[in-house]
């Protein structure tokens, strides 16, 4: 009897170990050097550039499509892409682009000016999430001949080239229906790669586009694996299942992978920013002294170190570090952790230790990663250091949170911003122009500010624009409808043999320069 059960147990163990060990030899996780596997925790939401409006999807679209112009890899400089060259009229309202003559989509279908016009009109017809990037600026677009495209703009737009680098302007294959969103359409455009396999939330396989006009990608095949969370992705990297762990590992993972020594940890500046929103319409944050006091007490280096373990840098303006016209206005006006100044301002606003300012600080628990609760906690501590502020921390899920924000139901709350296009305009107008900032719910409105922003949009001389954006930032630091906190850095962690990681200031990872040694 006893022997029987022992046998049964043995059989079970043997079966398991045979399957397990048999698989070790059979599984052969070894990829040929022509393939690179990238792990991400982001999702591809919508393969249709007429509707895709999130950073990671834009990255994928940038690898399978291209626009008339693009950023030179690793720089903020715009270079020709599908268009060889272009002209602009004096007040920058009519832009003419001359296409390359040999353009083809991945399947060999020729790409002409008509395709560019069709694709842009498609975006205007469908009116998907990002369509405003076209409809707010473009009045109409025409094909003069097979190789000439003319854009007629609604108003002078100095940064139109920056807009053209965004996916809504990418020409798409004729397979995309003219008036419908096609979220799983894999026909793509004329980028360095084409999509050969797409299983939503599991795997996306890209192969080099044989008809690409430019340089051939260094790696023939790129496989993207989608992970539910950062810890699973990190395990997959450590287990050798993926070559690259990309968006987004947690600060603690990055820290320990750096120390591990078996991986390359590549750090690049990122253009995404985090900031506090202050409701300028409701008490007590409607009082500018209160907002200034809150700004003075914030200690950014402490936040960057304690919460993000050095994976972000302090930010003292809404215009990110490194972008032209950036000015450290909050540093000049308030410094960091300036408790004395905060106290003085609070006293002026009528608060004291016996009559403290009471505020509710809101955050959302998952949308910005799991460090958010710590960020809220440290802000509470920094503000309460004044002895004159009492902070209650509150949180809500993303869907609820954005609703509260848009309706101005929160007082002090944390948000973040990924740019749509790389220009100071995208970091100022949506926040500070009274007609554009309803999404943020701060209720901020200042006619001087509105005027400066409108002027800056129209001018084409960068020096003149710089002066205006500097003024804008100065007013921002005085009015304090937002308190800039930190600017993200991007981290790519790779196996030691992976080379050629290129991520520009546009934060788009271009897979075509990747290779394995």
């Amino acid at each position, binding site marked *: 009897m006893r022997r029987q059960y022992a046998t049964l147990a043995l059989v079970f163990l043997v079966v398991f170990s045979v399957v397990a060990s048999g698989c070790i030899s059979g*599984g052969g996780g070894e990829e040929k050097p022509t393939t690179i596997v990238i792990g991400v925790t982001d999702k591809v939401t919508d393969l249709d550039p007429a509707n895709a409006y999130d950073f990671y999807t834009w990255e994928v679209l940038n690898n399978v499509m291209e626009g008339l112009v693009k950023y030179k890899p690793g720089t903020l400089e715009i270079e020709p892409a599908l268009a060889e060259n272009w002209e602009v009229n004096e007040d920058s309202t009519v832009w003419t682009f001359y296409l390359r003559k040999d353009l083809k989509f991945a399947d060999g279908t020729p790409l002409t000016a008509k395709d560019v016009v069709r694709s842009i009109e498609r975006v205007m017809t469908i009116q998907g999430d990002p369509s405003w990037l076209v409809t707010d600026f473009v009045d109409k677009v025409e094909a003069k001949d097979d190789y000439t495209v003319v854009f007629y703009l609604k108003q002078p737009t100095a940064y139109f080239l920056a807009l053209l680098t965004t996916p809504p302007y990418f020409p798409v294959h004729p397979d995309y229906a003219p008036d419908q*969103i096609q979220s799983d359409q894999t026909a793509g455009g004329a980028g360095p790669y084409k999509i050969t396999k797409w299983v939503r939330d599991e795997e996306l396989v890209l192969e080099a586009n044989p008809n690409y006009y430019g340089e051939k990608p260094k790696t023939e095949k790129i496989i993207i694996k989608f992970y539910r969370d950062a810890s*699973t*992705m990190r395990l997959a990297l450590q287990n050798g299942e993926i070559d690259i762990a990309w968006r987004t590992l947690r600060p603690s993972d990055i820290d320990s992978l750096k120390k591990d020594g078996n991986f390359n940890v590549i750090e690049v500046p990122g253009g995404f920013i985090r900031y506090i929103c202050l409701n300028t319409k409701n008490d007590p944050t409607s009082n500018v002294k209160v907002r200034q006091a809150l700004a003075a007490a914030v200690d950014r280096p402490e936040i960057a170190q304690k919460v993000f373990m050095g994976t972000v840098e302090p930010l003292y303006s809404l215009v990110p570090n490194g972008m032209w016209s950036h000015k450290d206005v909050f540093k000049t006006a308030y410094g960091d952790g300036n408790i004395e100044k905060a106290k003085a301002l609070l006293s002026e606003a009528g608060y004291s230790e016996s009559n403290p300012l009471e505020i509710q600080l809101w955050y959302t628990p998952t949308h910005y990663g799991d460090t958010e609760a710590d960020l809220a906690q440290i802000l509470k501590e920094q503000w309460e250091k004044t002895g004159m502020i009492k902070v209650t921390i509150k949180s809500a899920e993303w*869907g*609820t949170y*954005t*609703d509260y924000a848009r309706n101005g139901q929160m007082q002090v709350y944390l948000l973040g911003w990924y740019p749509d296009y790389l220009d100071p305009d995208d970091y100022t107008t949506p926040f500070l122009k009274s007609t554009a*900032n309803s999404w943020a719910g701060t209720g901020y409105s200042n006619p001087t500010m509105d005027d400066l922003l409108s002027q800056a949009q129209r001018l084409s001389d960068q020096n003149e624009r710089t002066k205006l954006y500097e003024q804008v930032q100065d007013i921002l630091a005085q009015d304090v409808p937002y308190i800039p906190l930190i600017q993200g850095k991007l981290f790519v962690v790779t196996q030691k043999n992976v080379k050629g990681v290129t991520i520009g200031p546009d934060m788009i990872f271009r897979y075509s320069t990747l290779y394995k040694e």
Partner: protein
Amino acid sequence: MARGLGQYIIIRALMIIPTILILYTLVFFFLRILPGNPVMAVVGTKNIPPEQLEHLMQMAGLDKPLYVQYFDYLKGVLHGDFGVTLAFPMGKPVWDYIAQRFPATLELALWAFTVSVLLGLLTGVIGATRKGTKTDTAMRVYSIIAYTLFIPWFGMMLQYLFGIHLHWLPTSGRLDPGVNLHTVTGLYVLDSIITGNWDALVSSVRHLILPALTLGIVLSGAYTRLVRNNMVDVLSQDFIRAYYARGVANRKVMWYALKNAFIPVVTLMGLQFAILLGGAVLTETTFSWPGMGTFLVDRIDYRDYNAIQGAVIFFAFFVGIISLIVDIVYALLDPRVKY
């Protein structure tokens, strides 16, 4: 008897309908009581003009009165239409997702179920036949530990041991990157056998081992206890002694005992299957398993009303069918059950 059983099945089947209706109503209204909606969640902090926001709300049908939305969806479900997703990507049939995601959950559940029943029976029988010994105690301790294990923690331990430390098994997903498999049923192991794709078979089995073991071991604890106690009960009954007195071989007696001890286990199996699907949510999250669990969690984050409703109705229907089958099997196994 035949008529009785037939009626019993019909009544039990009809009872699934009100259960689903109540669940749907609760989910429908609960989702909408909370502030925010899928369009808001997708748009998030993007600077979209208000008129476009309105347009998106219209496209999602969220501008209609609540009762219209309620009955529209219900009408759809009755026609087998689970509506379209409201969050990213907007307008894709929810059924497509269920059809893609459910087989992954089912495959994981079936493997975990097999592991749990086998382990539970083995440990339970060992415990019962050595009642009162140290082995018996060990099995009981196993049962308690297994039952109280926290899935994400336990899963992570297995990932570290068999993945990072030993490099034996993959820690996440369903197939190795780049392995192609033509899907027929969506159950990868079965599909790779049907299509004769041995690379995919090995790959999918390897990927299944850790999540199935995690969930299987956690669920086996309940069986261990039940099997052991039932076996102990049965072994002390007169008919067993009668077998022994007649000189029936020990192995045969054990078999009869197990058969008798098995009836309550069948009920537990039914209940466990529902729990299994719940446990699959945690297991799927831990192992990035692209099943219904991760789908539901993602969609809840984005308040995708239709997707959540669809998934919940489908789950409820499935669990209802399983428990119906269990009840029928139970009725057939135990002649004492009256309908």
